[in-house]
């Protein structure tokens, strides 16, 4: 709102009229001066400071430290960009990066599809006791990665596991899932979909709940079929939530480490190394933290890109509504 100057009170009409009605005092100067010029604001800043400080010490400091690590060798000598250039030639790293991306490409759409399907089902009028369905469906989200991996390791076990039972019933040879590269990839993807699709379900269900009911009534009156209404009303409405779900699912799937630790330990060979496992292996088992930090940088970059999109969706998309 800008103040229009054309309409102004006449002198003598206001109670005690100012003479300078047409001049407007300037807006206050700058955020920082405003921030500290009021007692109330100072209190507010003080309330925020502890958490900011914690973040700076435990989240930002490590990121900065990371850069120093990258630029030095394990002995603490300055080596410039050698770690990074070594990384570009490191076939194990390439494998891990490709594995992470490959997994993302399979897992993210699967999770979104499963999540959207379940969200629509639970949201439909036919699902009674929604609370119970939701409670059950979100359980995997809260199971520790390592426990989830352990559970599925049993499920995939050639003799103890349940997964081979239907195959045997069909007369097929039992598959020893975790010992061959391609079946291990499939097996891990299934675990990840089991673990992460509830996140997509939860977000999309929350999104569906925000769609106002009356637009469906309006669409029905306007002659839209159910299918049309879904395309024209539901999807545009949950689009921002869909974007958020995509990004979060992607971020979650790239940081997976416990599942791999519990099931394949990166094997067979190095076939199931992902980025996180690579970083862990390099830093902790091979004791090359400086070199591993270069891989961290790649991971941060990926998160940063996802995060920028995330924030943009939350802050731009929704405020334009």
């Amino acid at each position, binding site marked *: *709102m800008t103040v229009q100057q054309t309409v102004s009170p006449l002198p003598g009409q206001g109670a005690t009229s100012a003479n300078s*009605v047409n001049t407007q005092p300037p807006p206050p100067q700058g955020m920082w001066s405003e921030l500290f010029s009021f007692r109330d604001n100072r209190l507010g800043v003080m309330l925020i400071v502890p958490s900011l400080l914690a973040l700076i010490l435990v989240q930002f400091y490590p990121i900065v430290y990371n850069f120093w690590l990258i630029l030095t060798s394990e002995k603490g000598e300055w080596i410039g960009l050698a770690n990074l250039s070594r990384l570009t030639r490191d076939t194990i790293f390439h494998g891990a990066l490709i594995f992470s991306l490959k997994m993302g490409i399979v897992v993210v759409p699967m999770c979104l599809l499963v999540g959207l399907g379940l969200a629509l089902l639970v949201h439909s009028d036919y699902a009674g006791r929604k609370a119970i369905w939701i409670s059950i469906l979100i359980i995997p989200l809260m199971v520790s990665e390592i426990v989830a991996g352990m559970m599925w390791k049993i499920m995939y076990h050639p003799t103890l596991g349940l997964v081979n039972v239907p195959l045997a019933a069909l007369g097929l040879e039992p598959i020893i899932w975790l010992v061959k590269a391609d079946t291990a990839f499939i097996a891990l993807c299934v675990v990840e979909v089991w673990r992460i699709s509830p996140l997509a379900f939860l977000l999309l269900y929350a999104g569906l709940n925000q769609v106002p009911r009356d637009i469906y009534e309006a669409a029905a009156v306007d002659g839209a079929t159910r299918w049309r209404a879904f395309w024209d009303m539901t999807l545009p409405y949950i689009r921002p939530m869909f974007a958020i779900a995509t990004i979060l699912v992607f971020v979650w799937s790239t940081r997976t480490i416990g599942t791999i630790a519990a099931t394949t330990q990166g094997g067979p060979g190095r076939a199931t190394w992902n980025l996180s496992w690579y970083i862990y292996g390099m830093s902790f088992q091979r004791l090359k933290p400086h070199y591993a930090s270069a891989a961290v940088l790649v991971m941060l970059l990926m998160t940063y890109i996802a995060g920028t999109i995330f924030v943009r969706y939350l802050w731009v998309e929704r405020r334009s509504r």
Partner: protein
Amino acid sequence: MAEVRIEGLTKYFGDTCAVNQLNLVVRDGDLVVLLGPSGCGKTTTMRCVAGLERPTYGDIYIGETRVNDLEPRERDVALVFQSYALYPHFTAFDNIAYPLRLRKTPKDEIERRVRDVAEMLGITHTLERPPGLCSGGEQQRIALGRAIVREPVVFLMDEPLSNIDALLRVYMRAEIKRLQHELGTTMIYVTHDQVEGMTMADQIAVMNEGTLQQLGTPSEIYDMPANNFVARFVGSTPMNFIPGALQKENGKTVHKSDQFVIPVGDEMADRAAELCPGGVCTLGVRPEEIRFTMDEEGANQAGVFLLEPLGSETILDIEKEGLLLKVKDVAATQVREGDVLSLSFNRFHLFDDETGAAIR
């Protein structure tokens, strides 16, 4: 009991100026209505008085005290919110008793005063219920009770009636006015409903886009609007505006537009020559100030194209060459759609097109 004085109040939200150099004195015991469209700064002004917003510039006095740096609780003012803002986890009784409890009032006195107020407002039967189980009207009165019970020096009302149905609203606005008179407490009442403003106020302050447009009694505001904004905003059937210019015809000054030629009195013509030398001005006339006759001879003829019967009176919609006029027919004459009327303009105002100010 106290006077409220607002001096040069300016409030910025970021780079947006919500209130611009407002000066206003609310006399002790007066009911002043801040009237204006949404976003005009009236609520911001009131919140500055309440202490919920900090003025960017300017001073606010309650009584003789400058209250700029005081917390809301130190100002002894009560505020009734548009949403009522009742405490959902308290019963109605606890809602009303809350301000007294904070002031360490003795228990039996709290009990007595809450019951008194509840009786005065007719909500005794709701006292044991949480507000969620009360009707809108009851919630509104609980909010009112919470403000009254502590006997503050100033009442602030932020559109308290906008969420209840029309019939109850008419009843409640009389009720609030009666209460204010009985208690004799200064009240600032914010509304965008000009009928509410006209019926309740001792003084009305009309605001637009952060600036005060006019301060006056309801009849002053209605009969002598300071500018075309006030003229347009006040009045349940809005004022008619006819753009045109002042001209001399046969030695007499007339307001000449594409549609009408309206003679202007000598006194007003002199003022206009002084205040608006260009002569380009809009003529404003209230619907009840247009007289008409059925004869087809006179000057300023125009056709009726729609009747809006309101029971006690009828609004005639008259059109001439793209200009719409609303005319109030109080006498229930037998005008029909399609009739041609000859109009005369009884009392009217002239507004300078450049500044919007009334020529007077």
